[in-house]
């Protein structure tokens, strides 16, 4: 970190790889560097390490270890889940149900399928970003082959009723995928109670390294590969395994699961302090659901001002935050999530997302609460939209 005051409140974008996780990974770069597919003994540690990581991921998700497939991240997991099902079951039907507030890794994938002749239903959400299970049931058609609904939203933190949606999907015998990238380490995730067939995770969102993730694939589910090649991962996902990354994923998920409930309690207290403080600013509103939200997520609109300007001024004050999601921050688009929640364009350009992490302290929150009102005032003074 380069600044004096450095308060990192963008843990939904990525988290610091925990030093313990890095330590766990280190031996697999230069010491146990063998290719896990190799026969000889020096490669055995790589193989063992991968299988150990697989057990840890399976344990954290309530899955069987043979149901865990390692990928290069949440994006690949989402792409694989959707395209792999579309390709394997496209003859049975070409209708997919998803929501208007999915991550782009889901939305842009189904849009690509749309060009290939699939029909996509984008379920609406209410003002809190919540999907109703009834709307899922109503959208089901005889040719529906896949339902994809995220577990928790990355921008506004709203937690979806996936268990109910999973029941509906199962009762109609439709494959159900859930993007749980933001949920791991924050709320309990159990693939059986959720009734999911496919579930995406990404290590760097919970203290693991970037560039590695996993896809849960329910035993017996037919799915085509996304990456073809060698016989790795039960012949379902080719490519020399990212051994250190996979070890890091395993270490991180074990750690995250162990500390989850304690951490969630702490996050919720800090979150309340932060939300209560920010809402004392006039013309401010909380986005997302008041209670069904990730313990670490705060997303607020301040009328009359624009998101990027807020970020830049916060950054000048040593606070790292975001507006919309990190991966679109370089683009001009308003947040598709906030638009789906019914916000007008200028507000969808102007939200502030603060996502807490395990290192966040009460003092950090208080510092932020001291800075934000000044920043908001300054930008409102500058804005032609501010009423006199």
């Amino acid at each position, binding site marked *: 970190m380069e600044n004096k005051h450095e308060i990192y409140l963008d843990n939904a974008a990525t988290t610091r790889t925990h030093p313990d996780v890095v330590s766990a990974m280190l031996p697999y770069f230069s010491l146990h560097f063998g290719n896990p597919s190799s026969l000889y003994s020096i490669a055995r540690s790589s193989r063992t390490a991968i299988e150990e990581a697989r057990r840890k991921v399976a344990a954290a998700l309530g899955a069987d270890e043979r149901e865990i497939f390692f990928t290069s991240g949440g994006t690949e997991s989402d792409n694989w889940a959707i395209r792999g099902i579309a390709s394997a079951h496209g003859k049975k039907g070409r209708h997919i149900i998803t929501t208007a507030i999915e991550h782009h890794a889901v939305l842009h994938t189904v849009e690509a399928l749309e060009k290939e002749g699939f029909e996509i239903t984008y379920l609406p959400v209410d003002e809190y970003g919540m999907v109703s299970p009834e709307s899922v049931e109503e959208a089901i058609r005889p040719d529906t082959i896949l339902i994809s609904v995220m577990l928790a939203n990355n921008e506004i933190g709203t937690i979806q009723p996936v268990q109910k949606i999973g029941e509906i999907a199962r009762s109609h015998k439709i494959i159900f995928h859930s993007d749980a990238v933001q949920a791991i380490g924050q709320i309990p995730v159990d693939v059986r109670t959720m009734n999911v067939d496919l579930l995406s995770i990404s290590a760097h969102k919970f203290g693991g390294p970037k560039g590695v993730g996993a896809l849960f694939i329910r035993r017996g589910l037919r799915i085509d590969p996304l990456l073809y090649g060698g016989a790795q991962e039960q012949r379902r996902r080719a490519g020399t395994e990212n051994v250190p990354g996979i070890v890091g994923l395993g270490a991180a998920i074990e750690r995250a699961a162990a500390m989850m409930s304690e951490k969630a309690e702490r996050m919720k207290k800090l979150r309340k302090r932060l939300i209560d403080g920010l809402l004392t600013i006039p013309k401010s509103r909380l986005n997302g659901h008041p209670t069904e939200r990730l313990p670490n997520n705060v997303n607020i609109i301040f009328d009359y001002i624009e998101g*990027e300007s807020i970020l830049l*001024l916060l950054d000048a004050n040593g606070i790292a935050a975001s507006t919309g999601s990190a991966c679109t921050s370089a683009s001009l688009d308003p947040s598709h999530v906030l638009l789906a929640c019914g916000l007008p364009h200028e507000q969808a350009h*102007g939200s502030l997302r603060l996502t807490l992490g395990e290192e966040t302290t009460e003092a950090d929150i208080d510092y932020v609460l001291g800075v934000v009102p000044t920043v908001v005032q300054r930008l409102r003074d*500058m*804005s*032609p939209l501010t009423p006199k």
Partner: protein
Amino acid sequence: MYSETVMDHFNNPRNQREIPDADGIGEVGNQKCGDIMRIFLKIHDNVIEDASFQTFGCGAAVASSSMATEMIKGKTLEEAWEISNKAVAEALEGLPPQKLHCSVLAEEAIHAAINNYLEKMGLEPWEEGEGSCAGCSGCGTD
């Protein structure tokens, strides 16, 4: 992502205020784009004696407004009209490609303010040449 000059103009915006008795006011942009820029001009004997702005927008939009108002002060209306978005962006030591439209906005706001003055004076508004939003890929491409 931004040059030091952009960050300087963003953090210390020049001429950010209203001019209550402005001779010309131009407002451009729209909320869909997430950028609205308003420029105020005080004009005497065909020369811009004072200029100021109000902006709702990103860092580049704020910096472009600030820089543009600096650039037109003391210029004749003709000289000010000729200040292109490229000149603003260059004065800012460059803008990221996806932010070039913000400098276009500044050029347009100056034109709008000058034409507002001309209309108030009962004169013909000047016509836009090439440039402006024509060469900009900001809106609606996604």
